[in-house]
């Protein structure tokens, strides 16, 4: 483990080294060939505590390379989970060979610098590298012990985890792109089972940060315990049409789903219900949606996108009117516009495509925290957990049907708990039926901020 922390130097020398490596490989490009080299390296620690003991301690380093080659508008890609000298040339050769088989497409090409300056966002906590493993273990053990003691109804703490990651990446292309980034993050997460009589319910909580300091075990514990305990005694809720209030965590999940319809690639390929609707009213007049990765508070904040262009603020929906989409280089060319600096990629083993990093809704009036929104709604269903988001939401047709757990809202306050119900509508109708947006913006893990949301006219299926 000590060997791995030494590699992650705090002075930025790590990313310089990666830039040099990426530049060297890009330099092997042949005439007539565009080459983009992405290299990444990371270290991670993960501790899981269970019943006063360390259940598992993981420490690891990983590194890899992803190379895109474009020849005559044909794209090939190859990757390797190693930065060993022996794999670099082989990976370039594979990417080159793959390019020969692709269909030539005038819109296919690598990003070229567009002159937009990058906004510096500091995502690196130098102190993380100096935290002894013993302290990380102790934090996980404390979290487990305190959660167990938090409430007599906690029957089990299934898992109490500490984790951190330090990641560095560099991107160099023959088209003039040269960017690097580094990022640290830390988290605590805990999952509990509460019980009373025959009823058992589960809840989870977490705390995230840029490093070790600032992680808040009370926050993680409090969330997990209250979520599990307040569901005790839940019964299958009643069927009917209702306003549904989504808590901040669930709102993040909803926005993430909507975001896939805002991808310029989905639009170009006829896979978005927003296609052809720019300038039209697609949402409630109170709906304004922006993707702004330059906001350093955002979990997905970044200076550069996955093709090395500067990230920037993009307004997507204003006053319910659709303003535009998010593009990477290829989808922008296809649409006849410029890239919005919105390329994302899933590490060195993935190719870039357009996507969101930091969505937020323009907040509602002051005082619209969770309680404020509940009071405004009066009667309805409050949802704290959703299941089957992958199996019951179709972002192309817009059909939306998911399992839910939560509490009834009566007289503007949370009332009895309910479970084993579904909430259904279509994404199109949900955007138009937005009743309230919380002012309680919280940057949760993921690509969208958490804000309490109230959506009207949803169908509940239950008893």
């Amino acid at each position: 483990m000590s060997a791995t922390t030494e590699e992650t130097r705090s002075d930025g020398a790590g990313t310089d080294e990666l830039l040099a490596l990426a530049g060297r490989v890009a330099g092997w490009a042949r005439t007539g060939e565009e080459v983009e080299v992405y290299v990444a390296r990371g270290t991670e620690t993960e501790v899981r505590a269970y019943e006063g003991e360390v259940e598992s301690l993981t420490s690891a380093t990983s590194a890899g390379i992803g190379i895109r080659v474009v020849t005559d508008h044909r794209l090939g890609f190859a990757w390797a989970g190693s930065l060993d000298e022996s794999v670099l040339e082989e990976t370039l050769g594979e990417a080159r060979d793959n390019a020969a088989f692709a269909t030539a497409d005038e819109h296919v090409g690598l990003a070229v610098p567009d002159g937009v300056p990058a906004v510096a966002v500091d995502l690196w906590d130098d102190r993380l590298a100096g935290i002894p493993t013993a302290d990380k273990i102790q934090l996980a053990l404390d979290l487990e012990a305190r959660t167990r003691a938090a409430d007599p109804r906690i029957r089990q703490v299934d898992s109490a985890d500490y984790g951190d990651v330090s990641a560095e990446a560099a991107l160099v292309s023959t088209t003039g792109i040269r960017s690097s980034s580094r990022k640290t993050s830390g988290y605590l997460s805990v999952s509990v089972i509460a019980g009373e009589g025959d009823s058992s319910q589960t809840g989870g909580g977490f705390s995230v940060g840029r490093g070790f300091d600032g992680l808040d075990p009370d926050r993680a514990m409090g969330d997990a315990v209250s979520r599990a305990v307040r569901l005790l005694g839940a019964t299958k809720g009643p069927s009917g049409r209702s306003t549904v209030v989504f808590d901040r965590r669930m709102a993040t999940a909803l926005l993430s789903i909507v975001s896939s319809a805002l991808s310029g690639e989905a639009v170009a390929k006829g896979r978005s219900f927003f296609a052809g609707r720019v300038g039209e009213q697609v949402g409630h007049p109170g709906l304004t949606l922006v993707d702004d990765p330059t906001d350093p508070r955002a979990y997905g904040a970044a200076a550069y996108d996955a093709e090395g262009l500067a990230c920037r603020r993009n307004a997507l929906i204003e006053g319910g009117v659709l303003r535009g989409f998010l593009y990477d280089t290829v989808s922008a060319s296809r649409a006849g516009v410029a890239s919005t600096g919105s390329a994302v990629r899933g590490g060195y083993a993935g190719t870039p495509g357009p996507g969101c990093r930091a969505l937020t809704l323009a907040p509602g009036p002051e005082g619209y925290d969770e309680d404020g929104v509940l009071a405004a709604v009066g009667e309805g269903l409050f949802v704290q957990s959703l299941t089957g988001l992958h199996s019951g939401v179709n972002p192309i047709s817009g059909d939306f049907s998911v399992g839910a757990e939560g509490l009834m809202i009566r007289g503007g306050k949370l009332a009895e708990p309910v479970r084993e119900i579904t909430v259904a509508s279509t994404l199109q109708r949900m955007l138009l039926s937005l009743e309230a947006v919380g002012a309680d913006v919280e940057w949760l893990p993921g690509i969208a901020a958490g804000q309490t949301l109230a959506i009207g006219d949803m169908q509940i299926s239950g008893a």
Partner: protein
Amino acid sequence: MIETPVLERVLSEALRNGGDFAEVFAEDRSNSSALLDDKRVEELASGRERGAGIRVVSGETTGFAHTADLSEAGLLRAAEAASAVARGGGGGTRTVAVGPSGPSPAGRGDRPTPRSGSKADALELLERADEAARASGSGISQVQAGFGTSTRRVLIANSDGLLAGDEQARTRFSVSCVALGDTGMQTGYETAARTLGFELFDEVSVEELARTAASQALAKLSARPAPSGELPVVLAGGSGGILFHEACGHGLEADHIVKNASVYAGKVGQQVASSLVTLVDDGTVGSEWGTFGVDDEGRPAQRNVLIEDGILTDYLWDYLRARKEGRVSSGNGRRQSYRDLPMVRMTNTFLLPGDADADEIVAQTPRGVYVAKLGGGQVNTTTGDFVFGTTMAYLIEDGVITEPLRDANLIGNGPEILQRIDAVATDFSMTPGTCGKDGQSVPVGCGQATMRLTGVTIGGTAE
């Protein structure tokens, strides 16, 4: 991949600080994939990764480290990191000797060597699928076809003397279609996936897959909203197996059982399902998607009967959870890659066929929903509440399958739903899927014959 004397020295190093058990899991995986979208071959990708995960178990604690460096020095560093959890116990030198027991450490045993296909062969299949899908109807507005193949070699050695290996070739082909009509867009998706090489295509017609996907999308253009509320449901053979994967499969994984985080804990010998239910998990079935030679702990795949005539007979076990109970693993220790700790996972999980006639089951259902295809699901093992989503469903009216329905999730509680199975037919088939648990994805198979549930809550929007 790694010489036996090196494995022995690494295992000895891993136990230098003490500990009860040490294991080296080495993996060498290569993937290649091709994607045809919007009538263009957009991306050919190749990837390669190799590495080893080393674990040391000391009392209740597991230390884990992984490395992409398979040299002896790299492995020894990882062993040292993993052994950090075992301070205080024993110490001194422990000599470890490993050797093959049972299956050949070379892997494939008597299975034939998988056939490989060229990139050009793969592209031809993609083009044939695209053509067949588009020829299915003028309503088809977009087609994406994907091909992927991987070879995964694993080598496992542990301090109990085990030395085992396996070579797993897997190939998949999928087609997804969008249909456009007056009511908006609808989607269809079909996939074929086996633990095979290119000989998958001796058994599977890509044109047929494409036509099935296209016909789903086209049929749903005239779909009406799914009902809201409880109705009898007939699940067609194949993908309906997802019901068992979610309703009880996960709840029978011993990691949930030992933490008392499953509704099935303590119920061996009890009636947990209708007497028509005999549920099997079997990693040895032909070339199904969840089939392998040895699991990721070196244990040969085996057939495990979980529920027999409605009585719970056993759980699924990995090395660690089995050891705690003084028994042996059931061959269900799996991991996504060398970067992950193994967990208890399903392989191919299926309901044995019954003796009813599939058509008769429909004919004897006056009103209900016929689910031709399920897309996925999710379960909370502690409460047993689960959802599963339809991607092709129809109404049953007066014993006849009538109008298509829009996608929806169905919700139920595992132990309750398993009692509501009142008919199982003879028309058994299997379907491939990807199972996600605690951040790790592994290939699995699901299967059943056409069957009926007397009542399930359907999460549609039609009151």
